[in-house]
């Protein structure tokens, strides 16, 4: 009789609390807007998990608080509780039932995973490169254009083929839900199918050193026509021969060039490396105590042998020592494509001189 009353109260309380908690969750534990096809099945799974969390939390807390308040010791009562050691049926039950439930969730998870990772028709490949602390995107199917923003056509499944140059990074746009690390020397892939036109932010989700916080890139999802227009504009772009050295210097500083911006600001704001604003002709104190004036020689040396002359207050060995090779390779590439000789370091110096 007493048992029945307890059972009914518990059932009612648990049901109410579960519903209440689930409602509360949709306020305080809300997901960001969903903007990819992958987000659909993932959010369904989220929803199921939230229901389970609500129920389990409600169930155990109701039982606990019920025991605390309903069965608590009455004043003057000095006796012990009933001598109950266990109940095999109950114990088997609360082992088997959760097992079935979690395995069910496992199966569901596996099915969802398969759905969001399997190849789709009409995929488009984009190469993603992450390095401390900048992103570059290359579009092999669009004539190898290269960009610092990720621009994607809506409704098409994009296969991101990703690579890191130095340390681990991670690709995450919360609205797309999925995430994948970038590993040096190893290609990782991620599939996303943007479904909502709009602007998003890609932010590196794996700690990658000093400026991990700042490792971001703009993501723009546009319609097919807009994408084509963007591709056209991009591929029309640099015939290096037509650009002034200053323009080329600005280009090398950007993500399509060598991503110098990851460490060197142009507006005087502090970063990992010295700002380029007012750099040319500046007096710099070096870590070894000597003072130099920034001139062509110093800039060239700092690009090719970054560990040589470190400015006081900056960490040595942050700047990769392989720019000499990268620059030479790029110069050769341009020589092959356009038949002109470009001096990239000279371009950069010309650009820096404009930043007084």
């Amino acid at each position, binding site marked *: 009789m007493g048992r029945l009353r307890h059972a009914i109260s518990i059932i009612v309380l648990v049901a109410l609390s579960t519903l209440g908690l689930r409602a509360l969750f949709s306020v*305080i534990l*809300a*997901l*960001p807007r969903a903007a990819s096809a992958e987000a659909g*099945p*993932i959010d369904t799974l*989220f929803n199921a*998990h939230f229901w*389970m*969390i609500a129920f389990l*939390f409600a169930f*155990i807390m109701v*039982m*606990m608080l019920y*025991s*605390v308040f309903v*069965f*608590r*010791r*009455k004043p003057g009562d000095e006796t*012990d*509780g*009933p001598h*109950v*050691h*266990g*109940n095999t049926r*109950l*114990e088997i039950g609360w082992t088997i039932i*959760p097992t079935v439930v*979690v395995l069910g*969730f*496992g199966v569901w998870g*596996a099915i*969802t*995973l398969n759905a*969001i990772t399997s190849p789709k028709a009409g995929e488009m490949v984009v190469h993603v490169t992450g390095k401390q602390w900048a992103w570059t995107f290359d579009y092999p199917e669009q004539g190898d254009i290269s960009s610092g923003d990720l621009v994607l056509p809506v409704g098409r499944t994009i296969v991101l083929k990703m690579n890191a140059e*130095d*340390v*681990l990074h*991670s690709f*995450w746009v919360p609205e797309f*839900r999925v*995430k*994948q690390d970038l*590993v*040096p*020397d190893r290609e*990782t892939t991620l599939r996303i199918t943007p479904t909502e036109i709009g602007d998003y*932010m890609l932010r*590196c*989700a794996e*700690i990658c*050193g*000093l400026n*991990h*916080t*700042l490792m971001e890139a703009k993501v723009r999802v546009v319609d097919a026509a807009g994408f084509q227009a963007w591709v056209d504009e991009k591929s029309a772009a640099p015939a290096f021969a037509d650009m002034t050295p200053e323009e080329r210097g600005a280009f090398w500083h950007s993500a399509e060039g060598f991503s110098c911006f990851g460490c060197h600001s142009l507006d005087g704001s502090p970063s990992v490396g010295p700002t380029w604003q007012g750099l040319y002709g500046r007096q710099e104190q070096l870590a070894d105590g000597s003072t130099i004036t920034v001139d062509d020689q110093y800039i060239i040396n700092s690009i090719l042998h970054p560990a040589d002359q470190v400015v006081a207050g900056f960490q*040595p*060995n942050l700047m990769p020592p392989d720019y000499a090779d990268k620059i030479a390779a790029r110069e050769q590439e341009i020589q092959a494509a356009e038949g002109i000789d470009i001096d990239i370091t000279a371009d950069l110096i010309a650009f820096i001189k404009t930043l007084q």
Partner: protein
Amino acid sequence: MFKTLRIILTSALVRGIVGQALGTALGYAFVAGLRALRGAETGWIYEPALAFGAIIGVIGFLLGAGVLTDWLKWAIGRQTPLRHGAPAGRPEWSRYFNVDYNHKVIGIQYGISSLLILLIGGVFAILFRLELAHSGMQWLTNSQYNTLFSAHGIIMIAAILGGVGAMVNYLVPLMIGAADMAFPRLNAFSFWVSVPAALLILGGIAVGGWDTGWVGYATLSLRAPVGMVLFLLGFWVVGFSSIAGSANLLVTVATMRAKGMSLFRMPIFVWAAVAASLIQLTATQTVGVALTMSVAERVIGLNFFDPTGGGNPILYQHLFWFYSHPVVYVFVLPGLGVISELLPVFARKPLFGYRWVALSSLGIALVGFLVWAHHMFTSGMADALRVPFMFSTMLVAVPTGVKFFSWIATIWEGKLPSNPPTPLLFVLGAISVFLIGGVTGPILGTIPTDLHLHDSYWVVGHFHATMFGGFIFPFFAALYYWYPKMTGRMYNERLGKLHFWLMLPAFWVMSIGQMSVGLLGMRRRIADYDPALGIDGTQLLITLAALVIGWSVLIMIYNLAFSQRMQPVAETNPWRSRSPEWQIPSPAPEFNYDVPFEVVGEPYDYGLADATYIRDATPAAVPSGD
């Protein structure tokens, strides 16, 4: 006053620190000198010298403190009887600053150092929480922020390992009726070796910090600032403490139980300690390998992880998580043991399903070994591994669930006091907090949802809840509950309740807040976030909650420190517990049980009139040979 100072200045602690400083200097000078001899110039911190100096420094500490003295004497064939009590002519309190072999002293040494570094780690958290209270950079640089959260993580974990050491050392010999641990000198070693380890980690902050978080992933670890090396070595040395301590405990439980105490008649906490020790004994070695490899790659140039030489950065993650997942159960199992231990006492009912609860600890430990790659779902590891690890991860929920259901069944129809004392409050709080921590685990364990949640603040919320619920709350419960046992006095009940009622709600705000911002896109390990995420308000709440938690912990420290003198003497058995340690005076005598006991009944027979758990062993049953 002067005498006190002299005693402290000549204590093992101070001698050890001096030894460590000397050793470090010596090692540094040796390697730097060798290099100078070859005519190479060095920067002002030369890393190989620092690494070598750090290792010699640890040995210097152990020699200086005198931890190794007895063993060195054995090696040359000298007998060294175990010293008991304070060294001649020194006051009782000086034992806590010196190498002492009594498990209760060592337990308290662990406990105090654990609280101390909990405070340091907490202050770090508060410092970087102030930075995060608002978007935009407030007062830290990126590099300071990175060092602070990395140090916070590892220091808190060291604090937990210390707290586990405290509970296990103090309680297990008492509970099984042993006079001490099986290897008292090894026990002292386990504690003392963790002191130079902690100093190494703090030294890592002093020489400029590091920025990899507590996980130290390659290849970032190979280019992180120089503090990295001290962090890696410090973490590595802590491992010695874990391995030695756990082997000691396992042997103690295996060979020194009181007569009649079969495995299923041990107090339940002992089961938890055994399960946790099994993990520590084995898994620690693999993280040791990972850390050694990282140091070797940084310092000597061996190649394991850097792909430019053919290495594999993901290998580091496998080795690391093979330890660091199971170790989260080291953090919680003793805490869950405390919950299982206290509930029957307060509910005046037997522990429901004792055997199944005991075995669930082993179950958690064993399944815990099979799930490590759930931290790596997005890492780019072999695709074929993802789904199997998802299933194994989901299965850990089962033995953990057994514990929850048994706790509920234990207090169902139990007679919990209507005005719960502080330890009970903390136990009930722990259940609620660990529950939310636990149930936010499977959502991380299913891969599709983890793809969103990984490296977001949801994870931060999840693990603060599990660690607070599984360790911090139960540890505080244990501190209050066994306080009379340790000191002979009662803590201040009103301050204890104040502590609880400040900390519980503040914790909920902090942890739910973290989960909430994580879902919305807040990444881990960032010093600044985009105001466009719309989370400024929640972040401020989290910071405020952190401050409240901080204050509440300070209240507890005050309570524990001053109750020792100002509170009334405690009754022998204030909780009317049936556990053996409460049947002897408080504080427990040097050798625990002057008359050995034998076990004649079940440990939790509350509610059964004239049931007995233990009684004085008949003299004939005393093992001879003494």
